[in-house]
């Protein structure tokens, strides 16, 4: 081994989360402060500060986990650090003030594993999150990293590897859920032409708004993906690997580069890996930020330097992919699952999950929920368990309304279906999809028409424009939805919208267009009354579509609570508010442009919206 692993031991390991969420919450400063304080107390030989990948509980960042003991500190600031270091690490008295207290409870929970958010998760793809420094390969190896690769390269034949993956029931985690083993078998059976070899690609072009599963895996445990790709290459006879990562993920790109270098240095990548005679190397290709490049044929076009637009399939990449050669392309999370399957066996893996969907799935749970973050749960778990169990329910005591799964192309599942067990089939049946694992929770204050409009505006913006239905259809549908949210909808609009959504879904070229109408179709299916209210009554029940709102000032509240504070009048851009300090204010409806600023600025809830 080129670099000798330090055999020094420490009394305490401070695992500082350095995932993107925590980094933007200043976790690097926290780390510096910790190191400074530790040094101040002369404990640098006893206490080691480690920056780890994403812990998952992003809502509560920046996070610190103290090992041993698994003590979980959250929402730290630099000011807290001197006290924390002195109390806990010097004097041995954990600081309960900085621990996590679940909503509606009084006592903090000190140990990470006792917290609901972590307790119900099953970690496979995220097995090393928060436990290793992603920029030190030795820590990955200490957690059994590359063990499965060694097994695959030295003890298993390609057929055995594929058999194991097939039996495990693993399905593509990128969205469509194609059986991974079947795909590998296809690539293995395909012949490369002109001695061009076969390619193995990792699709890390994660573009769904609010989704950060792949990013977290790449940032927390890049070696899991690299290891998975080498195993895949061995199974299908791959000669060259490409890791396609969005350029918007600079930390992931950096950590991948470091990981690849380290793996090469230790002979875990490149010529004659582990002396097994098998050679395989991976290069990183950075994507330029087009959402459609997450579609495999567009991604391949992008690597080839062509316009990032999809092409009709067949031929599938497994037959003719990158540079016309058979290409095995899997999503980051799929790759991260592979080493565990090879290591622990298909039988163990397939014991988790449902009949058709095995293993676990990582979801990024965002939106109107207490515990925003990244969770890995077994397939078959119900939405209720995720939202109320792991997610800690809806903040502010509001009512849960719907959950949008599968990213911008997914659908909205209403509260009536909260006990739906999550797997590929059930989500598709509900009109949504697994997608890459985005999960946006919505409460009673969410307007479903506006949500459909928002997601459609994203897909419309990201449509490459190649095929007619996606290019023109999404734009026209977006125009109709905008019209409805602005109170200009007509009775025919809903039929037209539905017809168009079905035609686009039926006739678009790639997955992007085929799924783009999903938010529209599912909201029409489950929340049609909301659309009708918008069109017929020109009202938005959730008061989100401001053009449909009427703002009034409650004279009593204005005078009694706010004493005519005049803030609303000063902020009104259209001079629609009359009144002066210490008097009752009122709104001239003819002048009001319904911008909602008065509602936002009133501290006394005197501005009412109807």
């Amino acid at each position, binding site marked *: 081994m080129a670099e000798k692993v330090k055999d020094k031991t420490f009394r305490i390991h401070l695992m500082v989360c350095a995932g993107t969420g925590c980094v933007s919450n200043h976790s690097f400063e926290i780390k510096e402060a910790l190191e400074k304080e530790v040094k101040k107390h002369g404990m640098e030989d006893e206490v080691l500060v480690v920056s780890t990948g994403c812990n998952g509980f992003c809502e509560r960042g920046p996070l610190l986990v103290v090992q041993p003991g698994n003590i979980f500190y959250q929402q730290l600031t630099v000011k807290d650090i001197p006290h924390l270091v002195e109390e806990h690490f010097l004097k041995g008295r954990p600081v309960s003030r900085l621990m996590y207290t679940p909503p509606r409870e009084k006592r903090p929970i000190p140990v990470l594993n006792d917290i609901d958010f972590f307790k119900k998760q099953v970690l496979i793809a995220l097995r090393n999150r928060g436990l290793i420094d992603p920029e030190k390969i030795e820590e990955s190896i200490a957690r059994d990293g590359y063990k499965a690769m060694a097994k695959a390269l030295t003890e298993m034949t390609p057929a055995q590897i594929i058999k194991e993956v097939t039996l495990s029931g693993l399905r593509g985690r990128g969205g469509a859920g194609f059986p991974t083993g079947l795909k590998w078998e296809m690539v293995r059976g395909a012949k490369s032409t002109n001695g061009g070899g076969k390619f193995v690609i990792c699709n890390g072009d994660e573009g769904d708004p609010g989704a950060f599963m792949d990013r977290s895996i790449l940032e927390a445990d890049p070696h899991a993906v690299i290891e998975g790709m080498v195993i895949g290459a061995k199974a299908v006879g791959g000669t060259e690997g490409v890791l396609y990562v969005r350029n918007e993920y600079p930390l992931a790109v950096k950590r991948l580069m470091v990981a690849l270098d380290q793996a090469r240095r230790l002979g875990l990548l490149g010529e004659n890996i582990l002396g097994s005679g098998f050679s395989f190397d991976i290069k990183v290709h950075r994507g330029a930020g087009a959402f459609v490049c997450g579609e495999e044929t567009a991604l391949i076009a992008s690597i080839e330097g062509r316009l990032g637009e999809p092409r009709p399939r067949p031929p599938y990449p497994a037959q003719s992919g990158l540079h016309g050669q058979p290409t095995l392309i899997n999503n980051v999370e799929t790759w991260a699952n592979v080493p565990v399957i090879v290591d622990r066996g298909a039988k163990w893996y397939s014991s988790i999950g449902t009949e058709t969907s095995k293993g676990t799935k990582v979801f990024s749970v965002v939106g109107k929920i207490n515990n925003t973050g990244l969770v890995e749960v077994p397939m078959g778990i119900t939405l209720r368990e995720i939202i109320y169990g792991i997610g800690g329910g809806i903040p502010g005591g509001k009512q849960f309304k719907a959950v949008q799964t599968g990213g911008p192309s997914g659908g909205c599942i209403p509260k009536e279906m909260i006990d739906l067990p999550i797997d590929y089939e059930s989500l598709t049946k509900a009109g949504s999809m697994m997608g890459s694992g985005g999960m946006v929770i919505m409460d009673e204050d969410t307007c479903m028409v506006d949500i459909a409009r928002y997601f459609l505006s994203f897909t419309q913006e990201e449509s*490459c424009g*190649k095929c007619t239905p996606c290019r*023109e259809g999404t734009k026209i549908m977006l125009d109709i939805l905008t019209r409805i949210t602005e109170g200009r909808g007509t009775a025919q609009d809903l039929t037209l919208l539905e017809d168009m959504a079905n035609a686009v879904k*039926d006739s678009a070229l790639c997955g992007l267009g085929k799924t783009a109408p999903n938010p529209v179709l599912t909201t029409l299916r489950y929340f049609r009354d909301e659309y009708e209210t918008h069109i017929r009554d020109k009202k938005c029940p959730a008061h989100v579509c401001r053009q449909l709102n009427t703002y009034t000032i409650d004279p009593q509240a204005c005078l009694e609570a706010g004493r005519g504070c005049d803030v609303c009048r000063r902020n009104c851009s259209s001079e629609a508010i009359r009144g002066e300090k210490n008097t009752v204010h009122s709104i001239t409806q003819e002048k009001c442009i319904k911008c909602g600023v008065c509602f936002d600025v009133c501290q006394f809830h005197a501005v009412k919206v109807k």
Partner: protein
Amino acid sequence: MITLTIDGKKIEVEEGATILQAAKKLDIKIPTLCYHPVVEPYAACRVCMVESSHRGRTELVTACNTKVAEGMDIQTSSQRALNARKMNVEMLLARAPAAEPVRDIARSLGITHSRFPVKDPEEKCILCGLCIRTCGEIVGAYAISFTERGTERQVSTPFGEPSEACIGCTACAYFCPTGAIVAEDLRGRKVIHDELLLGPTTAIRVPTRQAVPMVPYIDQEACIHFKTGECRICAKVCDREAVKYDMQDEVVDLEVGSIILASGFKSFDARRIPAYGYGRYPNIITALEFEHLVNASGPTGGKIKLADGGEPKAVGIVHCVGSRDENYNEYCSRVCCMYSLKFAHLIKEKTKAAIYDFYIDMRCFGKGYEEFYHRLLEEGAKFIRGRVSEITDFAASKEEEGRLIIRVEDTLLGIVRRIPVDMAILATGLEPSLDHKQIAKTFNISCSQDSFFLERHPKLAPMSTFSDGIFLAGTCQAPRDIPDTVAQAGGAAAEALALADKGTFALEPITAEIDKDLCAGCQMCVGLCPFTAITYDKEKGISVVNDALCKGCGTCAAACPSGAAQQKHFRDQQIFAEIEGILLV
């Protein structure tokens, strides 16, 4: 072979065929927009959607690129397929309301108008990508591509700048189904009107419209395949697989008894007279170009059109362009008067344009020619006697604006006139062909002062040359029209046949001979002999005379320094004896 069902009809097609190809065999029409048989299917317009049931799975697929599979059941007009197709056509109609093919398909589907907002009523581009695929797959230039995405998507060169990669072939415009690309739009690589309309239209073509044999050839200078290595579109569309790119020019050696030279003429290059504006103004064309234009199988189907597609209101025909002009050619080209009259007659017949013929002298000397001239006079063509000094677009009055003005001194009236016309035809004269000097050298014949080949005798032997067995036919000897050419060619052929029939020919009685004992092998005579009758015998080290070629001119005898070359019957001895004889008398 694969068996499938389309609209309830069974059909067997080859493996690898598409649904569209299979449907075509059954005469079932599936509308397409972005499909073209010579480029890879793109499946972007989604107009060819059909419903496919296969292995228990029913879905909409595009017929243009989906390969047939055993047991497939295709419904080309199921409700589901029609819904999607109609919706897509309606969306395209809103996008490109001016695109004729979209409107056609919309009409056939019963769509009269689009419910969706129209951004630009003049828009023609349907983003089918045919131009881009043509430029890449066929031309191999990869000069254009799509830029931007979604509804902003458009066809463009890199960064919208004129592309270096563009070879100006205009194939993109040719393949554009809606006319959204016009060749003139190719910035920096404009295709001028006369080339587009009248020049050679394609790289593979029949040399002229009356060519014999009527066989196309590839102009390697113009052919894209020889520039980029791609294209091969002519081979793709040729069912008989007759197109070969590796064919080379070959030199064939033939042994013949006599040769008839019919190397023709070249038309006078009108650019040499800058005052006539040819090449600068699109509506000034040469006689040959007008001939193309007026030909029923020509680019406009025989309609007389201006560069902008309009019909001329007045046409000027300028006679004697490059002929009877001491600055260019002094001789009369003999044919221009008559073909100019023919043009005038055709223009009269096909348009309502006023016709002006600018002539120096009308030379209507053949049978029925003068009568034709009189007929034109009666038809109302105006004949103005005088040499045209200039053709310009410089307008001196309102009526002249935007037209061509022909300035001429009317020698009958004695005034200078300005005649505004819309089209000027230059009656270009005839000149010896470009390689006539090379031909003359090869065949050892001489040229007259005007550079046409010289006949042996203008009256007694008009098709013979000084080299026996070499005859002349047609305009290589002098400008002449078709009847004269046919007559002369008949005569030349008869001469050649007579020679062949006799089987022998009489040698010149007086030829040179070289005394091999005296010849020093200096080879001076070899270079001097005008008939290449003397060759140098390397082995013997002496020069030898070929009796069949020698015409007995005596040049070698006069030049030989050693006195080895002598002319038979005119040896020094004989000449001296004759001189002596004279002196004795």
